[in-house]
Structures are given as C-alpha cells and as structure tokens.
C-alpha cells in the first residue's frame, strides 16, 4: 500500500472515533496536552501520603488541627502550581477540587473546638481516595 494512503487511513480512523465538530478540538487538546510534571505528581503524592499518616492521630484534636493545616498548605501549593501551566485544564480542575476538599476539613477545626475523631477519619479517607484518583491520572500523562 502507498504510505500516503496509509497515513490518510490512519488519520481518518482517528477522526471517525469521535463524533461531530468537537473532533478537531478534542484531537488538538489531546495531542498538545501538557505532559507529565514531576513536581505536580510529587505534590499530589505528598497530600495523599500525609493524609494516610495523619489518620492514626485522629484521636488528638490538637494534632489533627495541625495536620489539617499542613495538608491545607500542600493543597494550596498544588492548586497554585497547576494554575498557570498552559493546556493543563483537567489537572487545574483536579487540584481545585482537592483544595476544596482539604479546605472543608481544615475549616471544620477552625469553626469548632470539639471536632470529632470520626469526622477526622472520614474526611481524611475522602482526601486519600481523591488524591489517589488524581495521582493515577497525573502519573499517566504523556512523557
């Protein structure tokens, strides 16, 4: 087969996978998406790892408050780091979501002096699951 024809067939096949006018935009977005960033991955990993370690200290309100402060600092750094990287929309959304989730936990310790151990554990579990979900896809970005 003529190589030119083959190129055409491959290009047409990709175009047929996606319907309508959004095809070109989707192809462009996918092809030029921001690649893997080591620091981005490191930040989301830190959030997840801190949450995993901190869950053991949920019985202490004082320690948990400090732990949520640290988590919140990391979440703000993650959100700010991703913010102005071009063609990084999906990761920006994820970092904003994780920031909001961590902020909920941190806010709870500033609005009450009796935040329960159960709340601490359940909120940290939410953060662990969410940051792991984000970590999987951030780690799979193209090299």
């Amino acid at each position, binding site marked *: 087969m003529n190589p030119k024809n083959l190129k055409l067939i491959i290009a047409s096949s990709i175009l047929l*996978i996606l319907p309508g006018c959004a095809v070109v935009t989707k*192809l462009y977005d996918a092809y030029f998406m921001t690649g893997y960033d080591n620091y981005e991955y490191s930040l989301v990993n830190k959030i997840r790892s801190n949450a995993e370690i901190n869950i053991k200290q949920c019985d202490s309100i004082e320690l948990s408050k400090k732990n949520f402060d640290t988590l919140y600092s990391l979440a703000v750094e993650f959100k700010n780091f991703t913010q102005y990287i071009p063609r990084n929309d999906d990761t920006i959304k994820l970092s904003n979501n994780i920031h909001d989730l961590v902020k909920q936990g941190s806010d709870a310790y500033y609005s009450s002096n009796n935040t329960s151990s159960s709340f601490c554990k359940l909120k940290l579990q939410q953060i662990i699951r969410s940051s792991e979900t984000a970590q999987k896809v*951030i780690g799979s970005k193209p090299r």
Partner: protein
Amino acid sequence: MSDIVELEHHFNEIQRAFENNELSKEEYKNLLEGLEIEKTITMNADELQRKEQLNTYITAAISAASLLS
C-alpha cells in the same frame, strides 16, 4: 467496585456514623459535601484519562505513519 457503588458505600459509612451520634450535624453536612466533590474528582479524572488515551493513539499513529513514509 463501580464508582456509584463505591460512593454509595461511603455515603452509608457517613450515615451510620451520624446515626450513632459520632458526628455533629455540621460535620455530617461537611462530609456529604465532600462526597459531592469526590464525585466531581472522579469525573474530571476520567476526562483526563480519556485525553491521555487519545494522546497515546495519536502519537502511535503518527509514529507508524512516519515509519512507513
């Protein structure tokens, strides 16, 4: 476990803790709002994953075409 089944399981955990008086009303509300964010994170992660897969297909197709040209 599917995403929906998993979220339902986490909802039940929160519900149980609230019914056992382990959570205040504010904490209960906070955790339910957190579940809502978790759902959004799953959707956004799926979107990024689809983009990554498409990137892989395009790159592979271009490499294959380049080898033949």
